[in-house]
């Protein structure tokens, strides 16, 4: 232990001795899970403030939970977005497609077709529904778990799979880890592996849009664990200072790899409450309730469009599967958590809602799921014609040196020559099929 400064005696009078608090999740592997401590207000019970509301007046919403879909599978209260059945079916379709896609790609990684994959199972509403509440040309700055946005925006699945396989068809030229998509055409920012960096960038984009008197807003997604990064706090500060037309979506899926949300501060307050200290509007939303997700994102989008200010939304949800193909969650959390999760499953809840209002049935659901799976399977086959990762040598070696700069400086030209020469030495007959 450190000595006190020379000659000094104890001056503090702490009683008892100081002790360090280290957060601990409620359940570990093998534990019986009881989520009764989670407060789940009745659907429809949360008021919906005016979109231009002063953040201080909506303080309670940062601690509540906006919910629309009730136990009776009906939509309730002021947050009901009153979407027509076609829109609801579309929403369900995108969510089902996202799930089918995840299943197939996860399996593809297990079969050795690529190096890595990440599912968003249980969190589909937080990207699909939120994205539907935005305009198609609003700029999104996602993290790695928002494949639902691309699917909702109509990005071709084959492009996604080509990227995942890093194959000849990959528009990102095999440079990025699987799922680190980019599509300027779909106003979808290039995904970074470095957590939370996208959040202040979204604010900057929104500031630029405001500077230019544009009509487009920006939205960013970030995991609850990643809100601990300084970048997220930069985002909040700049958003509030410049009243930027931006939405900060925090996906609180309870886990950050093996670390529960307590390591990002959840033992003390909500993530939505981060908004209050910055003077941002803060909403806390049932992230497994597709209608609530839509309604909250639309509220924030309207607010931003009206120059009324940025919003921080916490989507309270659950990461139903492992962090990624590199992770086995049975080593750190109770397997019961998923089934005991008090907010259910977003796909099931939306499906049951559509059935409850007489706009859907089990047969159609079964058919839709089957068609989604078949479609993904078919597109996967098409993508495989462009190659799977294998040893990865799908792209002309020169492409490795392109885009480092706009123009190739002499040293990269020399290195590119070297790379091509090495390729010819190793494969005089040309690259092997992988």
């Amino acid at each position, binding site marked *: 232990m450190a000595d006190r400064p020379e000659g000094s005696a104890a001056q503090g009078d702490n009683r008892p001795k100081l002790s360090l608090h280290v957060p601990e999740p409620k359940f570990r592997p093998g534990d019986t899970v009881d989520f009764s401590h989670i407060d789940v207000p009745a659907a429809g019970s949360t008021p919906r403030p005016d979109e231009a509301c002063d953040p201080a007046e909506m303080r309670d919403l940062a601690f509540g939970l906006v919910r629309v879909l009730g136990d009776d599978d009906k939509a309730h209260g002021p947050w009901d977005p009153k979407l027509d059945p076609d829109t609801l079916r579309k929403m369900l379709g995108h969510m089902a497609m996202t799930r089918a896609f995840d299943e197939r790609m996860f399996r593809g990684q297990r079969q050795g077709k690529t190096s890595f994959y990440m599912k968003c199972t249980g969190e589909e509403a937080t990207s699909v529904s939120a994205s539907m509440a935005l305009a198609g040309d609003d700029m999104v700055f996602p993290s790695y778990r928002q494949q639902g946005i691309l699917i909702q925006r109509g990005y071709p699945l084959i492009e996604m799979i080509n990227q995942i396989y890093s194959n000849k068809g990959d528009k990102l030229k095999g440079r990025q880890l699987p799922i680190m998509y980019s599509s300027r055409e779909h106003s979808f920012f290039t995904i970074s592996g470095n957590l939370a960096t996208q959040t202040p960038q979204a604010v900057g984009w929104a500031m630029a849009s405001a500077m230019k008197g544009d009509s487009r807003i920006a939205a960013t997604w970030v995991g609850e664990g990643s809100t601990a990064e300084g970048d997220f706090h930069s985002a909040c500060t700049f958003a509030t200072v410049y009243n930027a037309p931006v939405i900060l979506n925090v996906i609180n899926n309870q886990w950050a790899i093996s670390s529960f949300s307590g*390591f990002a501060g959840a033992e003390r307050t909500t993530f939505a409450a981060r908004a209050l200290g910055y003077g941002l509007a803060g909403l806390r939303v049932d992230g497994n309730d597709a209608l609530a997700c839509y309604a909250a994102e639309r509220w924030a989008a309207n607010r931003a469009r009206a120059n009324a200010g940025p919003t921080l939304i916490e989507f309270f949800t659950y990461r139903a599967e492992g962090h990624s193909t590199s992770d086995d969650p049975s080593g750190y959390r109770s397997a019961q958590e998923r089934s005991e999760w008090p907010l259910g499953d977003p796909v099931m809840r939306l499906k049951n809602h559509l059935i409850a209002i007489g706009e859907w049935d089990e047969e159609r659901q079964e058919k839709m799921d089957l068609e989604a799976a078949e479609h993904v399977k078919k597109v996967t086959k098409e993508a495989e014609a462009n190659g799977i990762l294998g040893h990865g040598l799908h792209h002309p070696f020169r492409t490795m040196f392109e885009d480092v700069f706009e123009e190739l400086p002499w040293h990269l030209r020399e290195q590119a020559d070297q790379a091509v020469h090495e390729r010819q030495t190793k494969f005089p007959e040309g690259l092997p099929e992988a």
Partner: protein
Amino acid sequence: MSETETKELPAAEQQDERRLNMIEAINDALDVSMGRDDDVVVMGEDVGYFGGVFRCTAGLQEKYGKTRVFDTPINECGIIAVAVGMGAYGLRPVPEIQFADYIYPGLDQLISEAARLRYRSAGEYIAPLTVRSPFGGGIFGGQTHSQSPEAIFTHVSGLKTVIPATPYDAKGLLISCIEDNDPVIFFEPKRIYNGPFSGYYDKPVQPWKKFDASVVPEGYYKIPLGKARQVTEGEQLTILAYGTMVHVVEAVCREKGVEADILDLRTLVPLDIETIEASVERTGRCLIVHEATRTSGFGAELSALVTERCFYHLEAPVERVTGFDTPYPHSLEWAYFPGPIRIGEAIDKILKD
């Protein structure tokens, strides 16, 4: 193992044939250090209950308790900063940064703070931290799980940079780092966590257990910082390498029948300049190999030093083999990696006349 290393071991421990991979050896070093000194604390993302994404801290929380081995918020700036604060109190923090690619948010705390506390307080305050972090590529990790940023740290006055290449060294060096009173960056070559690497991605990986350097004695031993390891002896040329590349150059020399003085530098700062000079003066030829990008890489420093200090002994220009000056690509990983062809050609060029 060099003679000096063997000499440091008590006779009883030399009998010990316990074989560990590099992960287990690192875990063992942490265990031994924590057992000897209550002030050693381990922290980082997922290092506690789970034991780290590469399992380097497995079992330590159970053994030493949550206040000595704990998870942290995902905030690398904060991880390094609180380690500086704990060091100022008198602890010996061993923070883990999950991947070297994620150390950058902590750079201000490392460069402006940890590296200079001793200097700016004239020794009143020190930063005795050891920042452990897996680095390097070869695992299809793409540009954010593959980088070798060691030169960023060797460029900073006040930081030591250490990189082991074997399980035996990893343990002995890590214990030295933890006991060192200055801040140390300890980069772990993740490609060789489970076994050395010949450079041929299309050949099966051999586990560490098959190699002598996996014999890791129980208990306490140190490998001094600033001392290189002689990997092979040879008269034809000197090869300077560290981390994964030590094994790749060794395999290339074996394959080509080249007799090289291969030096595993182990510590980049402070560097074992005496051993380097003695070797180059003997062989008259020097190849430097690292996986990191070339421009302003540590190889540039080594090349300058060898040229400045051994110029009149050199019979050929100093050569560097490195990664290319691009981000680490995902699919073209093996086109990027400085493998047997690039190394072999450089050796041929140096030996040409």
